[in-house]
């Protein structure tokens, strides 16, 4: 028996698979969010120095992580689409971008509302804040470039190149902003100097991180299904799906993989 490594790189094969996976990931995301929120807002003790305001980290930290990680995953899909010229990889990157941008925005937003009671200001030019802001611009640039190009295949390749150039720049941007910040005013605020976390706080945060993961996967899969339908609208299997005909032809269509 030979394993067909690229079987699910054909949108026709991936579409039903994604449909089967979505309920699992969405269910896990809801469940973990409820558990994480319960531990974070009910079980976890009030912080000695920051009071109740610290509880926003249960949203803030997972979103910040996912924003950064999401960009790397997106760039990975982009690299795959450039190397193997597969349509599905580009569609995955396209589907991931809005979720990543949303996470970057939410992490900035929650950070501002955490900073107000804790630091006394909504915004400081801290290294993390600034680099997350730039990350948000990178996401927006990726989506804007995609939207500006009419042909889908050209949009795939152009935005893939942009994402790869961007991902090389992400660590450079992070460290340059960090050095810039320390040169300017010295680290007045440091997240690493915070007192050690209680076990329940850590548990809540970890649960919330997994919840953010599963949410991102479920939403991306859902969006990629829509993108597949949009872009494969000319194929037989989508037409069969739309007219409600039995998917008997799916096997035949599924073999026309990339291009």
């Amino acid at each position: 028996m030979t394993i067909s490594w690229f079987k699910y790189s054909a949108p026709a094969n991936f579409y039903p698979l994604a449909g089967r996976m979505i309920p699992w990931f969405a269910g896990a995301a809801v469940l973990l969010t409820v558990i994480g929120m319960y531990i974070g807002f009910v079980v976890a003790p009030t912080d000695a120095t920051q009071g109740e305001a610290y509880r926003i980290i249960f949203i803030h930290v997972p979103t910040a992580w996912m924003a950064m990680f999401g960009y790397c995953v997106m760039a990975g899909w982009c690299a795959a689409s450039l190397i193997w010229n597969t349509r599905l990889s580009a569609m995955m990157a396209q589907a991931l971008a809005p979720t990543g941008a949303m996470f970057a925005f939410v992490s900035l937003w929650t950070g501002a509302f955490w900073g107000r009671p804790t630091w006394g200001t909504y915004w400081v030019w801290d290294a993390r804040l600034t680099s997350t802001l730039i990350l948000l611009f990178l996401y927006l640039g990726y989506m804007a470039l995609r939207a500006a190009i009419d042909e889908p295949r050209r949009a795939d390749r152009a935005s893939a190149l942009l994402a790869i150039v961007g991902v090389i720049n992400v660590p450079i941007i992070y460290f340059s902003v960090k050095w810039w910040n320390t040169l300017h005013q010295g680290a007045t605020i440091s997240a690493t100097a915070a007192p050690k976390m209680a076990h329940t706080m850590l548990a809540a945060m970890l649960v919330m991180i997994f919840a953010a993961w599963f949410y991102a996967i479920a939403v991306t899969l859902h969006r990629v299904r829509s993108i597949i339908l949009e872009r494969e609208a000319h194929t037989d299997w989508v037409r069969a799906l739309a007219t409600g005909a039995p998917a008997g032809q799916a096997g035949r269509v599924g073999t026309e993989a990339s291009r």
Partner: protein
Amino acid sequence: MNERATFAAPAASATASDADAVQGGETVGVLQAVRWACARDLLLALRSRAELALIVVFFVLVVSLFPLGVSPEPQLLQRIAPGIAWVAALLASLLSLPRLFALDHADGTLEQLVLAPAPLPALVAGKVLAHWLTNGLPLVLLAPVAGIQFGMETDAIATLTLALLLGTPTLSWLGAVGAALTLGTRAGSALLALLVLPLAVPILIFGAGAPESVAVGLGAQAHLSLLGAGLIASWVFGPFATALAVRIAYE
């Protein structure tokens, strides 16, 4: 645009004769391709000197706006001068980026370059070199004037100029990738700004940081070394990334 039309004819004939020469022989070497593309773009730039002057005037204008907008207080101006010079240089280089490929794209020259029997990364490198010589270098030469305007110390001015000399070619390469990716798109220069400016942040930080650290008595060597590293990396990877972006535009 009229001006472009008048000088386009001789330039096109020059391109054609060069292309004939190329087709007669075998494939062109890398250095030859760089030299040819650079010389062609310099010739074209020389024939539209008014546009070149516009970039310089834009830079001086933006720099002069800051004292009016912020405050004429010398101490404050002296402190923010390197940042202003760099931001003005960034904006000025952004302004000239559409000229890099868009005109050649519009009249079909770029397509011929893609098809030419010469390595495309080398041709692109020649174009970017010419772009820097006509748009980046004038800003480097103007930087001391801006520094004097803002009352900077002499050694800080020297560092600022050196930082611009090392940093502006990297800006040209980042911009070249962006300009090639946005070829023929609807969104135009606002999109180009959104693509290029976030990537240029490290250059801005190190470039503006160098004269600042000289001013406070720390050496600028770390900043200048990092700018130099960026320069080398951009010249190594830039040609290939830009050539790929140009090819994508013609798929």
